[in-house]
């Protein structure tokens, strides 16, 4: 019987299977990409950290005094210690690499994987490149390579390879003394790798190490390092995964709608089977198996398709799916059959859940009644179910206020799911509420009356037809509202933080840059009206958080909002304190408010800084502090700056001004200076933004496509089921065009009610995305904006598609078979 049903109605079965397949494919694809990216990253961490038991890292990239190394090496329990200089370098071509300065003998004892293989081990010019680095530089053994880091350039000769490095990691290993000298970091280290002796108590040694550490160094364990890198894009990836789960849920709704209809249509058949002896339990089982079979097929296709999507996505977008978190390496696909099975099961469960309700309904109906009354079991007296819907909505509302779990808005997503389910369950009641008054206003034309009466009398049927599409529309609307709000807020923010005409930053500069004399020359270059100098330092404030930033900015204490885009009130500065301004992500992550104090290592000492206000920042997700230029100089004496913002004099030509600035820049840096106009910066930022969301939009559009196709299939099925009704109407004297108009109107009304429900739900879900999901995932907020164009087009598309489908399926209702259908033969 199952196969017979499928042969008769292949379209509906295919659509239900397709819906499940899409959900499973999306979920599995995102999972695979996550796994592959993580594995690559973990390998990278392993490689770059070697196999040390523990590392001591500097808090900022300026490093700590190298005297710490012998201190640590002498602590009882430390078997070996390896000092490391770790720098972010780049080549003239712009390729980005990690440069490790190592003492070969020490490294061999602690992190043997980082020791190079080749000739000339003690040559000061020797560099050992990993495979990826060789490819990136186009170098081979013996060729020269120029590396630039922290404002210094140096030439090395490729002496050999790093066989222990991961194939995706671009690493260059050089001698540490050479590195310190040639990159201007004499007496400094960024890292000491430690290996413990056999049988030592890790805790005791760790405690001893902690006691020995200066404020600008901290302990980092292996686990923390990968946790930190994981955190970098975890929120973004979890969001994508959740979207995939929601797509799966939509699939479940589509199965429900399809099965409902199919079961309703076959009531007389089932009644006959019951009369002939099929038990209730068997009937439920049969219907559920039908749904499950579709789910199984869909799940299998989904797992295969998901693997394909993941491969494609990794090749096209990289491991962060366009989020911009991971640089460079394209990870390889890590196949995961166990996970594939889990997603297959999820698809099956969604299909089973969708099929169970109609199955229970079918089993409940009494065979005798069903045999006699071949209509679709419509009873207008039955009130649409309100209680369940309202309960779901209330649960959803409550969950929206729940805090994040593990830094992720899991309950926020739960809230979205509950509100979506509740809203859809509310559809029959909503249809009644809208159609009741509308019916009275609609006029007396027969087709109109009939259309309204049908929808009012059978709102449950209407809801079934629409629930898949309402789910997809509401999600699309929600995403659209969130993205429009986000983009608008980012655009506004960019306008606030990029007020000048030209911007220049020296790449990856922590030390060095423009000295005060150079700054003076630049300020007086022709074409320059005003010039501002800034600097950014990396801060590791907590071992389990990704690094934050310290922005050194000229701030006028009486008008701070000109320098930083404030979103909070300004707290007055107590006497003797130094002011600092915290970005929104920093405030959320480190629980800061105006009036709090925060301790930051500056100039070799921990400093207490007083938070005066919070500013909006979309650039650094993990927090930034802004400190005034004068305060920074007072605390550290550092007058070197690496970022420049130039406002042009009226009528000045940008290109000539840039040339003039280059002419007076220090010779060692001039090659690294790239100027960008603020217009291009804004355009580029928005382009990255659009790219990050492109994947999400593609997913949502596919979901809507499936929803629309499902509406078409459901309408045609429902129309087929009403053949006898149309036959009777024809007998009693309805003109063909009256029936067509009636169907078109039914379709349009259904579409309008569905669109209203979908868009309203979408507005609510959008607010949850804006007020709950985004702040909990990424620690930033945004102002709501409404993309009226998108919302209006969704409305129009839905109404048009519903009406059009209804009419098309109705044409078959006017054939001669309709006339014959009134006879008692089936």
């Amino acid at each position: 019987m199952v196969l017979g049903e499928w042969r008769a109605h292949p379209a509906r079965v295919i659509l239900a299977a397709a819906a499940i397949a899409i959900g499973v494919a999306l979920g599995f694809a995102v999972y695979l990409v996550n796994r592959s990216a993580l594995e690559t990253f973990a390998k990278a961490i392993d490689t770059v950290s070697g196999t040390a038991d523990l590392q001591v890292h500097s808090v900022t990239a300026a490093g700590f005094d190298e005297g710490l190394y012998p201190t640590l090496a002498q602590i009882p329990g430390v078997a070996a210690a390896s000092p490391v200089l770790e720098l972010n370098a780049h080549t003239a071509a712009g390729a980005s690499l990690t440069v490790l300065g190592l003492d070969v003998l020490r490294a061999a004892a602690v992190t043997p994987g980082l020791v190079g293989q080749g000739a000339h081990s003690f040559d000061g010019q020797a560099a050992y490149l990993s495979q990826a680095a060789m490819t990136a530089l186009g170098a081979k053994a013996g060729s020269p390579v120029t590396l630039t880091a922290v404002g210094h350039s140096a030439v090395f000769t490729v002496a050999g390879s790093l066989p222990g490095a991961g194939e995706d990691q671009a690493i260059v290993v050089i001698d540490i003394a050479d590195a310190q000298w040639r990159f201007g970091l004499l007496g400094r280290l960024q890292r000491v790798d430690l290996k413990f002796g056999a049988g030592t108590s890790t805790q005791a040694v760790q405690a001893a190490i902690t006691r020995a550490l200066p404020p600008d160094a901290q302990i980092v364990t292996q686990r923390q390092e990968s946790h930190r890198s994981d955190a970098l894009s975890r929120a973004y990836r979890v969001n994508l995964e959740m979207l995939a789960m929601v797509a799966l849920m939509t699939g479940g709704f589509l199965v429900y709608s399809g099965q409902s209809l199919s079961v309703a249509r076959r009531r007389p058949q089932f009644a006959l089977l019951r009369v002939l002896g099929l038990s209730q339990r068997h009937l439920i089982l049969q219907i559920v198996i039908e749904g499950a079979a579709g789910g199984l097929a869909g799940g299998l296709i989904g797992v295969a398709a998901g693997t394909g999507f993941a491969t494609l996505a990794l090749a096209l977008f990289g491991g962060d799916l366009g989020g911009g978190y991971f640089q460079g390496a394209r990870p390889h696909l890590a196949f995961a059959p166990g996970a594939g099975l889990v997603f297959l099961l999820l698809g099956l469960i969604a299909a089973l859940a969708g099929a169970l309700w109609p199955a229970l309904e079918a089993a409940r109906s009494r065979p005798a009644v069903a045999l006699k009354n071949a209509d679709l079991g419509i009873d207008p007296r039955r009130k649409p179910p309100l209680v369940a819907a309202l309960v779901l909505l209330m649960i959803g509302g409550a969950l929206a206020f729940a805090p994040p779990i593990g830094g992720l808005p899991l309950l926020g997503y739960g809230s979205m799911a509950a509100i979506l389910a509740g809203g859809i369950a509310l559809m029959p009641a909503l249809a009644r509420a809208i159609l009741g008054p509308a019916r009275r206003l609609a006029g007396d034309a027969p087709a109109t009356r009939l259309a309204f009466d049908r929808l009012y009398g059978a709102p449950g049927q209407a809801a079934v037809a629409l629930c898949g599409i309402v789910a997809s529309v509401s999600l699309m609307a929600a995403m659209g509202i969130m993205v429009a709000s986000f983009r608008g807020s980012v655009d506004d923010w960019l306008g606030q933080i990029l007020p000048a005409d030209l911007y220049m930053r020296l790449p990856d500069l922590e030390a060095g840059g423009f000295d005060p004399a150079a700054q003076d020359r630049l300020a007086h270059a022709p074409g320059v009206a005003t010039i501002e100098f800034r600097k950014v330092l990396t801060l590791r404030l907590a071992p389990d958080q990704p690094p934050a930033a310290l922005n050194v900015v000229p701030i006028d204490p009486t008008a701070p909002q000109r320098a930083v885009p404030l979103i909070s009130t300004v707290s007055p500065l107590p006497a003797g304190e130094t002011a600092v301004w915290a970005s929104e992500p920093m405030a959320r992550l480190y629980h800061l408010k105006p009036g709090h104090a925060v301790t930051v290592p500056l100039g070799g000492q921990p400093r207490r800084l007083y938070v005066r206000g919070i500013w909006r920042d979309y650039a650094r997700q993990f927090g930034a502090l802004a400190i005034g230029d004068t305060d920074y100089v007072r605390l550290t004496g550092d007058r070197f700056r690496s970022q420049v913002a130039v406002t042009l004099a009226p009528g000045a030509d940008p290109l000539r001004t840039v040339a003039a600035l280059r002419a007076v820049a220090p010779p060692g840096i001039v090659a690294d200076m790239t100027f960008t106009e603020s217009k291009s910066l804004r355009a580029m930022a928005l382009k990255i933004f659009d790219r990050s969301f492109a994947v999400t939009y593609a997913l949502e559009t596919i979901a809507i496509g499936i929803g629309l196709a499902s509406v078409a299939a459901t309408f045609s099925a429902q129309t087929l089921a009403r053949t006898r009704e149309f036959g009777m109407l024809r007998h009693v004297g309805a003109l063909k065009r009256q029936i067509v108009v009636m169907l078109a109107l039914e379709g349009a009304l259904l579409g309008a009610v569905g669109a209203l429900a979908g868009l309203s739900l979408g507005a609510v879900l959008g607010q949850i995305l804006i007020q709950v999901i985004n702040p909990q995932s990424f620690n930033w907020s945004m102002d709501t904006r409404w993309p009226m164009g998108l919302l209006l087009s969704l409305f129009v598309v839905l109404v048009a598609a519903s009406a059009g489908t209804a009419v098309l399926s109705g044409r078959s209702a006017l054939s001669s078979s309709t006339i014959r259908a009134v006879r008692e033969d089936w």
Partner: protein
Amino acid sequence: MGESGVGKSTLLNLIAGLDVADAGEIKIDGGDLSAMSDDQRTILRRDRIGFVFQAFHILPHLTLAQNAALPVLLSGGGEAQGLSRARALLAAVGLEGRSGSYPSELSGGEMQRVAIARALIHRPALILADEPTGNLDPESAEKVLTLFAQQTRDARAAAVIVTHSDRVAAIADRSLVLTAQGLILRGQ
């Protein structure tokens, strides 16, 4: 009356204007059906003919009064007028006071009565019935038949009934049998 498959239903369809004959002509009230367009035949059907089906075909999402008033509503006649006449007819067929109920509450016999009301509401000249008691138990069938005969005569309408049942044929003034050679009087 006649054997299964001999074409009784087809004949009914042709009379109703739902089908067009290959040869010959059908005249109702002086008008030749074969010369009319589908719309014209539909309007004729709507205004002059009433139907009673074996399977009742009452719309479940309309009240009894709305169901009975359907032909009037389809022709664009005033709703209030149509519904009040429907209520009167429903009372006449023994369903007084239940005009606002829905078909799901009715038994088979009651639904057929609504169908009879529907067949008469527009004061048709001709009523076509296809096995009107086919889905009813003997007791209900008896009541419905009596009602049908009485109402048709009161309305001064002609009726053509297709049936297998002798009991049904008994209420007719004339019984004809459709054979392969054509219509012949019963008993011959």
